[in-house]
């Protein structure tokens, strides 16, 4: 805010005016006449210089909560009777929130606090040698993903590209359901079951597929132990089913198979899965194009290095024309 400037001639304080504007838009007619008569461009008092704000000497306090617990997309009882209100409430309020709090406690003040969650999951996985907060970061990501995979009144059938790919890669929706069941029942212990879009390359110099086909990019069912997710394998997850016992014990006791089949029949949101698939396909193709471009640029660089540069012709004196 500029300090109120007093117009010396009339004594009016016009807070927004640094000096009398040559346009004199805000002054009254009598004022203008007066200013015109005095006819000096600058009649206002000089503005007090604004004191510069002191530069911040100390670092600001680290944010005690770099990550906030994302609210559920639906109320606790929205998934009844397939997933009870108690399960959803305990799962979100205690387990999910517990991981958020533990994560915040560990990373607060460190450089990890600035990272995006997905980035943090990949960094803390550390290629199979996870850092102590990997489990919390990964579980926060996994649970966010899990809640969004479900919706009240879910189930039904997939459509569009998702349906096409399911039929191409698994045969039918029932086959896919069978594979997911099998993965869930053979995940011995706690973990997750995923449907993922696999489009990654190995990332080594010679991973060129000699017979590339459209089927290289496909849907796969994967199971992961404890907190691991297929992000660490460079897949694009599309749906997640939590098969830790706390996710289903109060409703289904030990019957994990029943829980998974109800999940696929009544809870899953195929719209979200389709959206994620489209997103994944887009990102994968963009990435592929960029990688191809980089490869071409590298090749071009190599080629230019090998090309012999023709030297500029030596400067020769011009031949004199003989005068005949």
């Amino acid at each position: 805010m500029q300090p109120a400037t007093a117009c010396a001639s009339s004594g009016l304080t016009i807070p927004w005016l640094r000096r009398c504007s040559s346009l004199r838009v805000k002054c009254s007619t009598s004022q203008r006449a007066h200013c015109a008569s005095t006819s000096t461009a600058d009649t206002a008092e000089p503005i007090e210089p604004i004191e510069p704000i002191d530069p911040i000497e100390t670092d600001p306090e680290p944010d005690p909560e770099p990550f906030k617990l994302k609210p559920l997309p639906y109320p606790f009882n929205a998934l009844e009777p397939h997933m009870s209100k108690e399960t959803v409430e305990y799962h979100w309020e205690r387990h999910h929130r517990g991981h958020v709090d533990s994560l915040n406690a560990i990373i607060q003040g460190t450089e990890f606090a600035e990272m995006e969650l997905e980035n943090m999951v990949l960094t803390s996985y550390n290629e199979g040698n996870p850092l102590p907060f990997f489990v919390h970061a990964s579980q926060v990501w996994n649970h966010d993903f899990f809640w969004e995979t479900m919706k009240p009144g879910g189930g039904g059938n997939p459509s569009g590209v998702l349906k096409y790919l399911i039929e191409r890669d698994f045969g039918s929706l029932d086959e896919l359901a069978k594979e997911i069941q099998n993965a869930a029942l053979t995940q011995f212990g706690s973990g997750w079951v995923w449907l993922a879009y696999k489009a990654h390359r190995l990332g080594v110099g010679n991973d060129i597929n000699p017979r590339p086909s459209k089927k290289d990019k496909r849907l796969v069912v994967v199971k992961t132990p404890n907190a691991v997710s297929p992000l660490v394998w460079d897949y694009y997850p599309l749906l997640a089913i939590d098969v830790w016992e706390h996710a289903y014990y109060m409703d289904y006791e030990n019957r994990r198979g029943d829980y998974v089949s109800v999940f696929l029949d009544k809870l899953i949101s195929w719209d979200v899965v389709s959206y994620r698939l489209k997103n994944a396909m887009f990102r994968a193709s963009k990435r592929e194009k960029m990688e191809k471009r980089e490869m071409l640029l590298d090749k071009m660089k190599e080629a230019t290095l090998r090309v012999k540069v023709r030297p500029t012709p030596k400067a020769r004196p011009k031949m004199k024309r003989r005068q005949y």
Partner: protein
Amino acid sequence: MALLRSIAISSNKTITLARSARSLTTATLPPLPYSYDALEPVISGEIMMLHHQKHHQTYVTNYNSALELLHTAMDKGDVSAVVGLQSAVKFNGGGHINHSIFWKNLRPVNAGGGEPPHKKLGWQIDTDFGSFNALISKMNAEGAALQGSGWVWLAFDKELKRLKVETTANQDPLVTKGATLVPLLGIDVWEHAYYLQYKNVKLEYLKNIWKIINWEYAGEVYEKEAQ
């Protein structure tokens, strides 16, 4: 199991096995030494019933079917099937072993559960951990820190003649941590062991379970192994 097997290696690559006369001994669900609600209020009757009748029974059933398939695969010489069945055998067999020990490790309060160990085991605990309470804190800490599903064990190392606190993941039996380790006490920290009653407060479950631990059984095993 009596094995009669002769291996004839021909000059080419096939190895043939004579028909083996092997009998298949399947596992059975052991009965609980006490009623389902005898461990209240530490572990509710509902949990005990589900744990014994559903979880342990499932491990037994699946172990038996895996064993059948293994038997067939071994007879046929189907190596890939034999290898493929290992994880199912390890998981379900391990579950059966671990839970059979677990039922013996628990005892109702009115039958002596929770009474601290005396004599040799008590002295060994004092030697190796400092005090009985130190052992309990250590086991609780290890159990609480365990991510996912698994077991916490008080193990006796036969070779080194000392006690150790170990954890195993999922249903791995204690021997996977050391061939010379003998389990004296095992505490199930899978969520199914406490979730219905304690929800996610695993530490509360671990603190309370000491009230029903059967130190007499642990002492017997210890004295037998320490000879």
